[in-house]
C-alpha cells in the first residue's frame, strides 16, 4: 500500500479522544454511544444517500414492471416481471451493443495501461529533455473534451474510412483517458522511494527487472485506480459512440439504449432492464476504488 492511500480525515482522532474515557487498551468492541450531534449528522447523511439512490431505485422498479403496468401511476408494480431482464437481450439488438461496449471499454483500458504506464514511469524517474513539454501536453489534453471536438473527430475518421469500427472507439477512448491515467500514475510512482529500485538494480535486475519486480507491485493501488477509472469512463462514453458509430451493430450500449427513446413507443421496462445491467457493474467497480479516489484526486490535481 502506498502512503497516499490513508483515508482517515485529520479531525477523526481528535474528536474521538475528547469523548472517550481514558481507558488504556480499549477492548476490541467499543460500546457504541453516539452524541446527538453525530446522530443528527448520520440522519442527514442517510437521507441524502437515499436521495442519491432514488433515480436508480426507480430504474430497477421500472425494469421489473410487467408491460401492462407501465402506464400506471403507481409507486410499485403489482407483480414483478423478472423475465424483462432475459427478454431485453432476446428481443432487441442490445446484446450486440453490450459486446461492443465490453470490447471498447476493455480494449481502451488495456491500451491505456500499455501506453500510460511506461510514460508515467519514465516521467516520474527521469529528468529527460522535453519532460516539461510532455507534462504540459498531458495537462492541456485533460482540458480537451471529446464533445467539443466531435466535428473534427468525425471528419478525421470519415477521411480515414474508420467510422463504425471498434478500433476507432478503442483508440478514441484510450486517447481521451490517457492524460488522467498518466497524471495519477506519475504521482503514484513518484511517491515510491527510488532507493528501492536502485537496490534491486545493484542486485543485478536491470532497469526493466527493477520496474517489474519492485516498482509495479508497489504501484498496484494507483494502477488499479487509473484502470478502473478508464474502464468506467469508456463504458459510459456516449457522444463519440453516437458520432463515430452509425450502424446499429457497431454502437456501444449507451448509444443502443439511447436509440430506444427515438422509437414511437418507448419500452421503458426493457430500456431500464438494460440500463440496470449496464450501471450495476460499474457502480460496484467504483465502490471498490472509492477509498483510493480521494488520494488519487489529491495526487492528481489538488496538491
Amino acid at each position, binding site marked *: 500500500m502506498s502512503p497516499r492511500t490513508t483515508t482517515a480525515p485529520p479531525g477523526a482522532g481528535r*474528536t474521538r479522544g475528547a469523548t472517550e474515557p481514558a481507558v488504556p487498551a480499549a477492548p476490541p468492541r467499543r460500546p457504541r454511544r453516539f452524541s446527538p450531534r*453525530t446522530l443528527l449528522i*448520520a440522519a442527514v*447523511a442517510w437521507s*441524502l*444517500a437515499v436521495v442519491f*439512490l432514488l*433515480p*436508480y431505485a*426507480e430504474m430497477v422498479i421500472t425494469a421489473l414492471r410487467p408491460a401492462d403496468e*407501465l402506464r400506471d*401511476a403507481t409507486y410499485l408494480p403489482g407483480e414483478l416481471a423478472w423475465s424483462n431482464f432475459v427478454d431485453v437481450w432476446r428481443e432487441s439488438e442490445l446484446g450486440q451493443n453490450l459486446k461492443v461496449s465490453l470490447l471498447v471499454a476493455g480494449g481502451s483500458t488495456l491500451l491505456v495501461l500499455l501506453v500510460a504506464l*511506461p510514460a508515467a514511469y519514465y516521467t*516520474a524517474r*527521469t*529528468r*529527460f*529533455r522535453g519532460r516539461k513539454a*510532455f*507534462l504540459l501536453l*498531458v495537462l492541456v489534453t485533460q*482540458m480537451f*473534451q471529446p*464533445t*467539443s*471536438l466531435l*466535428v*473534427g*473527430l468525425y*471528419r478525421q475518421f470519415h477521411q480515414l474510412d474508420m467510422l463504425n469500427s471498434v478500433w476507432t472507439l478503442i*483508440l478514441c477512448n*484510450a*486517447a*481521451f483517458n*490517457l492524460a488522467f491515467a*498518466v497524471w495519477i500514475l506519475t*504521482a503514484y510512482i*513518484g511517491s*515510491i522511494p*527510488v532507493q528501492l529500485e536502485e537496490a534491486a538494480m545493484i542486485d543485478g535486475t536491470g532497469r526493466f527487472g527493477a520496474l517489474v519486480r519492485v516498482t509495479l507491485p508497489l504501484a498496484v493501488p494507483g494502477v488499479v485506480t487509473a484502470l478502473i477509472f478508464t474502464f468506467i469512463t469508456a*463504458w*459510459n462514453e*456516449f*457522444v463519440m459512440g453516437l*458520432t463515430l458509430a452509425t450502424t446499429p451493430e457497431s454502437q456501444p450500449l*449507451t448509444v443502443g*439504449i439511447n436509440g430506444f427513446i427515438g422509437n414511437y413507443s418507448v419500452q421503458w421496462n426493457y430500456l431500464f432492464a438494460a*440500463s440496470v445491467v*449496464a*450501471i450495476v457493474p*460499474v*457502480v460496484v467497480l467504483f*465502490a471498490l476504488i*472509492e477509498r483510493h479516489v*480521494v488520494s488519487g*484526486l*489529491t495526487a*492528481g490535481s*489538488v*496538491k
Partner: protein
Amino acid sequence: MSTHTTPRPPRAARSAAPRRPSGIAARLGPLPWIGPAVALIVLVVLWPVYEMVRTSFLNISISGFVRGSAGLEQYRRLFDEPDLAGVLTATVVWTVAVVGVTMALSLALAQLFNQRFPGRRLTRWALIAPWAASVLMTAIGFSWMLDRTAGVLNTLMTDLGLIDAPRDWLGSPATAWPWMMCVAVFVSLPFTTYTLLAGLQTIPGEVYEAARVDGTSTWQTYRLVTLPLLRPAFLVGVVINLINVFNSFPIIWAMTRGGPASDTATSTVFMYQLKSSDIGLSAAMSVVNFALVVLMVVAFLKVSRWNADSKEEAR
C-alpha cells in the same frame, strides 16, 4: 495557465534526484517510453482540433464532398443565425447556474461526509452512484420519472399536493430548463464533493487545534481557516466543472434533444443539431465553443488569482 490548477510534478519525483543521462542515448532515450503516449495524443486529440478548424473554413456538401475554401463565410452565416443569441444566453445561464449551485452544495456535502458517523462508508457509496453510472442513463431515468402519465415524480408531487395534476415538465422550455439543471447538478455533485474532501484532508489537524486554542467559533473557524485552505481544491473543482458543464451534452440530448427547435439547446447541443444538416456551420460553432471554454477558464483563473493577490497585498 495559472499555477493554481497546474498540478505540480509529483514531489517525490523531484526530491529523488532523478538521473540526467547524456549523449545520443539521452536524445533517443525517452522515445520508447513516452513516444506511444505522445503519438496517441497527437493522432486522436490534436489532429481533430486541426481538422475541426480546417473544416470551419471549408465549403462542404451534406454528403461530405469538399467544394473548396469558404473563407470566413461559415462564421458570417453562424453569426447571422437567428437562434444563436438565444442559444448563447442559455449556455451562459446554464453553465453559471449549474456550476454555482454544484459548488455551494458540494462545500456542504464535503463538510458532512468528512465527519465521523455510523454508516459513513455506505452513504459515501450511495454518493458515488451518479458518478459511476452513465450520465446518459441517469438523464433518461429522470425523463422517465418526469413522464406525464406514469412518472413517479409527477405522482409524488400530486400526492403531496404540490401540483394539482401531472404536468408535461419537459414539454416547455420554462420547466424543462430547471429540471435539466437539477440533473446536471445531481451528476456533478459526487466528483466535486470528492475533490473538496481531498482538499479537506490536506489540511493538517494542528491548524484546527490552534484555532480552538484561540477560541474561534465553529463558523469562524470554517470561514477563516477551512475555506482559505480549501481554495486550491475549490479552484480545481470550479475549472473542471466549467469545462464539463459547458460541454454537457447527454443530459439535454436525452431529456429534450434541445427542442422544441433550439429552445432548450446550449451551444454544444446546437452544434450537434447543426452537424447533420450543415457540417461547415457546425464546425464554426465548435470552434466558437472551444474558444469560449478556453476564455471562460482563463478569465476565471485570472479573476480568482487577482483576488488572492489583492488579499495578500492588503495584509
